[in-house]
């Protein structure tokens, strides 16, 4: 899952989070005066509750009515509202919570941890013995916004659409549907391979059955993506037109959408609360304002005027963090986004592990965060490996080099001397259009140079990912240090390690290529489900210890600001976004 902000392209819906300020329902008696002490709560693996049924339990003190305005700074929002096309944190967090249902969904649990619960399916799906066939029974009381029931055929059709990577190049189906569904790699989808039969997805009565190419124990998590939801049959869901005004089946429907500007959602009166275990319909209207100026949003949110009382901001400028933290108290929510920022030394060029470790010691972490407009220790925290904190199986106290790697130019010099590579030439790129990126690059260059590296930093004016991911780019060929920011799609190592570190991983910008590790990843995928989490964690530690192929520089957190009349300010741990399902306006 990606983030559209420059330098923050990211993949992943996140699970597991910290509960920023207790994560209570707004009436914690804790002092709200100087809430300067934001700590990470204890984190556990995601849980599941396959028996939960609708309606979602009422929130204490919740009232109906009101309009909520959500300010999204620096992100133009989704390009298309077609559920099959959605693979961004912003778009999915809005649509999955409010307008589009899928097989399964997440609910914010008591302690702020996300719980996987049924959505359109009556349970979390029934796998066969070896997870090569999954059957989901579709509930019969879910409806579209036009009042017609959602049928198993429509769900099967929606899922089949996700195999069309040509029509939906930005969709997650290209990664998971095509990767795991039987024959998915050879079937180009219902629009590109018109008329060709595809029999891995079938429906019978209320049952939808999906056959897998290889064991896919995480299908229930994959079912929580809106791409695994229904679409109207035939012409009605023809892309790209469907993407401008898709038919809703959640508690809200799309009233008006102006790309990059505004999305207005109003109550869907055909939605039946009894059919939905996790969503609420308290608010009358949602207005999402995209691509806002951060400074302007900060002013609105901190002003406390009537506009801001029913508003939510999905981020806050680092310059306003201190003020917001002391003034807003519980209304400033910190949320882990289950993301890791990394530097990726080219594995075929920087072959000596000591040089890679020297880079890790030469990277001035705190200074880079400060110069980049982050709040050290709040929006960025030190990282020890690739799997984000709290992910099931992660070895929490693991350190690849004995203790937490911090900026230590002396140590870096020693390591370089040991490798016999004093004055090693590093070639990297930076995005010169953004003054923050320029400031960050200056810090990195200074850090590396004081540790005895030579640095050539090439300014570019396109997204660095366009260069890093293009093997034919002439600049890319000269680089020996790249980077990637990655988020998990669900709480399993399988969405973190293979995309970054398998030899054919989509975002393997390091070019890491070890047959033994590739083999091990395949072996883990074939293991019994209950052993997988620990195996991924062990592999994560093993890779970092033995190869140190990429340098994790930070785990990332987000900050959300809530107006004083927004009830139940909290974050959605599954997506790293505000928890839109459970908000109400205090009357």
């Amino acid at each position, binding site marked *: 899952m990606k983030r559209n902000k420059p330098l923050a392209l990211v993949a992943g819906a996140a699970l597991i989070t910290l509960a920023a300020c207790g994560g209570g329902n707004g009436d914690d008696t804790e002092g709200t005066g100087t809430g300067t002490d934001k700590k990470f709560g204890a984190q556990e693996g995601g849980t599941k509750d396959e028996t939960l049924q609708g309606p979602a339990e009422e929130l204490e003190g919740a009232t109906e009515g009101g309009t909520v305005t959500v300010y999204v700074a620096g992100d133009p929002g989704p390009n298309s509202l077609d559920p099959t096309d959605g693979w961004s944190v912003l778009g999915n967090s809005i649509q999955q919570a409010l307008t589009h249902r899928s097989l399964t969904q997440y609910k914010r649990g008591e302690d702020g941890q996300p719980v996987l619960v049924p959505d359109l399916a009556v349970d979390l799906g029934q796998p066969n013995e070896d997870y090569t066939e999954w059957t989901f029974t579709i509930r019969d009381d879910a409806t579209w916004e036009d009042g017609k029931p959602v049928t198993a055929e429509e769900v099967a059709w929606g899922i089949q659409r996700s195999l069309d990577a040509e029509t939906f190049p930005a969709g997650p189906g290209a990664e998971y549907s095509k990767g795991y569904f039987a024959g998915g790699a050879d079937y180009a989808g219902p629009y590109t391979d018109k008329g060709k039969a595809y029999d891995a997805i079938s429906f019978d009565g209320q049952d939808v059955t999906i056959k897998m190419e290889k064991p896919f124990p995480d299908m229930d998590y994959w079912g929580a993506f809106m791409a695994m939801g229904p679409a109207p049959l035939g012409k009605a869901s023809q892309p790209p037109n469907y993407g401008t005004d898709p038919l809703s089946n959640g508690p809200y429907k799309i009233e008006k959408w102006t790309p990059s500007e505004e999305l207005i959602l109003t109550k869907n009166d055909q939605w039946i609360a009894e059919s939905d275990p996790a969503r609420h319909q308290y608010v009358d209207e949602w207005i999402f304002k995209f691509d806002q100026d951060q400074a302007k949003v900060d002013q609105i949110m901190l002003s406390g005027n009537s506009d801001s009382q029913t508003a939510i901001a999905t981020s806050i400028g680092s310059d306003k963090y201190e003020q917001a933290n002391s003034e807003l108290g519980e209304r400033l929510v910190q949320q882990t986004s289950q993301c890791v920022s990394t530097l990726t030394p080219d594995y075929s060029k920087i072959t000596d592990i000591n040089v890679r470790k020297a880079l890790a010691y030469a990277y001035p972490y705190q200074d880079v965060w*400060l*110069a980049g407009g982050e709040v050290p220790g709040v929006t960025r925290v030190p990282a020890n490996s690739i799997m984000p904190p709290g992910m099931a199986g992660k070895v929490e106290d693991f350190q690849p080099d004995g203790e937490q790697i911090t900026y230590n130019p002396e140590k870096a010099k020693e390591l370089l001397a040991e490798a016999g590579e004093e004055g090693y030439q590093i070639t990297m790129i930076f995005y010169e259009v953004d003054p923050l990126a320029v400031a960050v690059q200056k810090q990195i260059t200074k850090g590396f140079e004081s540790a005895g590296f030579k640095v050539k930093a090439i300014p570019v004016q396109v997204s660095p990912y366009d260069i890093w991911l293009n093997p034919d780019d002439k600049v890319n060929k*000269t680089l020996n240090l790249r980077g990637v920011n990655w988020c998990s799609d669900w709480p399993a190592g399988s969405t973190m390690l293979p995309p970054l570190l398998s030899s054919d991983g989509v975002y393997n910008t390091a070019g890491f290529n070890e047959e033994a590790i590739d083999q091990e990843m395949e072996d883990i995928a074939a293991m019994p489900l209950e052993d997988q989490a620990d195996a991924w964690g062990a592999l994560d530690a093993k890779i970092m210890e033995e190869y140190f192929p990429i340098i994790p520089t930070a785990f990332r957190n987000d900050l959300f600001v809530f107006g004083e009349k927004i009830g139940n300010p909290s974050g959605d741990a599954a997506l790293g976004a505000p928890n839109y399902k459970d908000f109400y306006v205090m009357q």
Partner: protein
Amino acid sequence: MSQPTAPEALGSLTDETPIDPNSKKAKAITGRSPMQIALGRLLRDKIAVICAIVILFFIIVAVFAPLINKMLGVNTDTVFPSQYLDMLGGGMPLEGPPNNGFDPDHPFGIAPQTADDNLAYWVEGCRTSLTIAALATLFASVLGIVIGLLAGFLGGMVDKVLSFFIDLFLTVPFLLAALTLAPILNERFNTADSYVTIQKFSLIGVLAVFGWMGMARLIRGEVLSLREREFVQAARVLGMPTSRVLIKELMPNLAAPIIISVSLMLPAFVAAEAGLAFLGIGVTSGASWGQTIAKAVKYFEQYSLYLWEPLIGVVLLVLSLNLLGDAIRDALDPKTRR
């Protein structure tokens, strides 16, 4: 009662000793060229003098920027901000403004986020600003003068073609061109070691290429009226080569409009450079007032000094240049009497 004119009075006129043509007094009256007269008027204009002093200050700062920084003990080197900023307390500097008193090590304070020295960046920003504006003005006015002279004097087909180009360049939106050119240059030269210099000169090029048309039109108009005058006709009849007519006969008569438009072009380019840097095109690495302003805008509430410094620099320089330009125009124009 009216008093008849005394014959003595009349006589006194004739009695006055004729002025010796070589005396100092005579020189003061007869020997002043139009330029000297204009200069005299300019010196009597208080605003012009103050503006000239301000501009002189900026020029000295720009020319001796490295020396001044050295003298004041500041520099533009990158430092680690974690040593100078209050990381957990809002990221403001630990010493100096805005939360503490004057910091002698950093007279203008240090920047939030990066902890760069504001004074050093201000001085270097002045240098960048004036270098780019001066060079762009030089190139633009030379181009404008040459094209204006040729178009006005040669007339006919040449005039038509050159006028077409003047109109063509006037139709291209300057900002759009600058925005388009930046990534193209980046793509082509970003691996070169001299990228920063190339970037600077491309900015000068863009400013000059889209800044000469006004000058060319003005000169062309002046030349059109001048070339029908008797002294030019005479020169042509005498068989002077065109180049001589242009340079020796026409140019001196064009001095006034050229000086005026140069003095107004300079502040326009200073402002344009700052504007482009604010938008993130133009000078992206190195110091620039526009860039500092872009960074400082969001800190206006907590740390307004950070924004005021480059802002005052730009405003003062542009205002002084503009006022001085106006004063020069007034001084050179024989029709104005102030």
